[in-house]
């Protein structure tokens, strides 16, 4: 998993909770990396799983809920860090359709070894977008948060129906997104 996910996660914990809490969960998680992350590095995704579960223990909030929270936070950070991916993009659906075909292609140019999830896109039904998440890692809830962050960024209220495709493992899910005011 790319280092940026870890650095952003810890920054979110420091910001939304406290620097002490961040220090505590790093300590509690007994991470092989010792919690030393750099955005350009690559780390074992199990460390993220441990960090989330420690945070959950500390805060009493469900792990999936924490991942959704982090997803929405990270989307806004993406907007700040990588504005070029947003150039010419007018709506949430435009952005979501481009993840696999453009954003991940660009990421692989810089990090050929990166293992990225896939976001299949189906726009065949008017006003409805069907996004299929598939990964080797259990972060469907993180994807859920990113999608919600995206809709909030473009100020598009929508209903999301989620169908788990991995029997509770969280490695695959389908998101049916229906916009509330005008069709997506």
């Amino acid at each position, binding site marked *: 998993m790319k280092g940026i996910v870890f*650095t952003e996660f810890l920054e979110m914990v420091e910001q939304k909770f406290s620097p*002490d809490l961040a*220090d505590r969960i*790093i300590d509690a998680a007994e991470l092989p990396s*010792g*919690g*030393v992350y*750099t955005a*350009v*590095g690559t780390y074992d995704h199990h460390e993220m799983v441990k960090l989330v579960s420690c945070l959950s223990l500390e805060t009493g909030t469900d792990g999936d809920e924490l991942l959704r929270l982090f997803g929405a936070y990270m989307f806004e950070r993406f907007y700040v860090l990588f504005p070029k991916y947003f150039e010419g993009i007018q709506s949430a659906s435009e952005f979501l359709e481009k993840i696999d075909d453009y954003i991940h292609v660009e990421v692989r140019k810089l990090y050929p070894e990166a293992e990225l999830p896939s976001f299949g896109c189906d726009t065949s039904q008017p006003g409805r977008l069907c996004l299929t998440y598939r990964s080797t890692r259990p972060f469907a809830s993180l994807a859920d948060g990113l999608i919600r962050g995206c809709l909030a960024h473009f100020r598009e209220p929508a209903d999301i129906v989620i169908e788990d495709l991995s029997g509770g493992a969280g490695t695959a899910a389908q998101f049916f997104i229906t916009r509330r005011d005008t069709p997506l």
Partner: protein
Amino acid sequence: VSDTQQLARRLEREKQARKAAEAIAEEKTREIYDANVRLQHLNSRLEELVRQRTMELAAARDEAVRANQAKSDFLASMSHELRTPLNAIIGYSEMLLEEPEDRVRPEVRPDLDNIRSAGKHLLGLINEILDLSKIEAGKMDIFLEVFDMVALLGEVRATVQPLMANNGNTLEVRCGSDLATLRSDQTKVRQILLNLLSNAAKFTTEGRVTVEARRLMEGASDQVELKVSDSGIGMTPEQLTGLFQPFSQADASTTRNYGGTGLGLAITQHFCRMLGGDIGVESEVGKGSTFTIRVPAICPSAPPRRAEAVAQRTVTGTVLLVDDERVAGNVLGRALTQEGYRVVRAAGGEEGLRHAREDKPDAIILDVITPDLDGWSILRSLKTDPQLSEIPVILVTLMGDRDMGFALGAAEYLTKPINPKELIRLLARVQRREIAPDVLIVDDDQTTRDVLRRMLIKEGWTVREAANGTEGLEQLARAVPAVMVLDLMMPGVDGFEVLRAVRQDPSWRDLPVVIVTSKDLSKEELEWLRGNAIDVFQKGAYSRAELISAVRAMVESARTACSSRLSPACLRETPACSR
């Protein structure tokens, strides 16, 4: 855990993270550097690859050029190899056709005729293929000469007349009065006309074929237009496209019904363009076709090779021209110079007699009416002077008193307007003083010798043979014949060497030599032959059958001359006949 400890841990984590980031940055930098090195290497390898490929391509091109040369050489030698047996086929069939009826039964004559015409057809095809390959290889040369267009048309008319008769066609030739002489390649103009006329004859039945020739002078442009029209089957617009492309006839059924290679028109167009002109065609199905050719009357492009050749070659003889008419004299003088004669001009009788004594000409051409002495008295003076009486005199006159001329000792007689060619033939006849009626044939091909020997013996000549150049020279040393018939391509001492030896030896120098060759002469060889007073007509050198007929014609003329105690020499307007 104290705040200080906590801060120290965080600081340590940040430090470690910075170091990790720096290590990654360094690694990425190295990767980029390595990638650049690899790119540079690839780039220089690409240049090396391009250089290598360029060399390979150049080698392939050289190989193709060599292969093309080999193809040309092969075609040239193949044509030689094909013509030699064809010569036997045509020659023997012609000889058999000339046998009396008690020796060759009448019922086999059509078969013999078929053999002969098939042989001639095949020879024509070989010649066309060779012509086209020479054109495509850029080896077809232009030989410019001054010639009489009307005479050429007359000759062409006589040649195609039998073709016209085959399909019941009538041929009409219309000449503009201003045609006069052209300076162009006579052989090619002849071939252009023959190609178009034989096409017209082939595609027209019970119809009319017309040749119209006229001179077009517009401003600085001086052209000759030749129009060949027929009332034959004609062509559709589709058939007209690609008409001048090699190997394309109007359509495949044309080949089946009418034969031919589809090369004739391609060659014709090439020839027209080589002469600085072009060819066009108009046609309508069922109505007929008209081919129009325009070529410059004075061909500008190539240097006047023929004139140079004349200047180089040894003088055939000296002719004294006594004529008071400037214009006629100029025409004759030019024609004679072109044939290699040295011309001495005299404006009147007194001057003529003085030149006759001083220059000792080989022949005198005498106009009967001159300002001071009239022709008859000059002739009388010449014939009564022991020093001059042996010089043959040709009378040129408007008056028709032929008997009086002969009575006074003139050898030959011409009436105005004079045809320069006829004059030159006469001159050739009267020029040499004594002959023995024998022929030496030098040829390594036994069939050729056989055909020539039987033909000449039938004409009453004594024949000696030599199978190669060395034997030929030995035979010459034994006795000088009246005429030598010489092949060029022979093993060992070849025809060129024999000719060189003949021209260097004072006792053989005047020996008339007829070149019989199926070799394709190169420009250099032709020029050398001309430099040695040999006239080898380019097209004539292609057809052995034509050469045989040339020899036959020469022998006949020599026999006529012989019977009137005059020398043979040779016929100049006959292809490949030489001196």
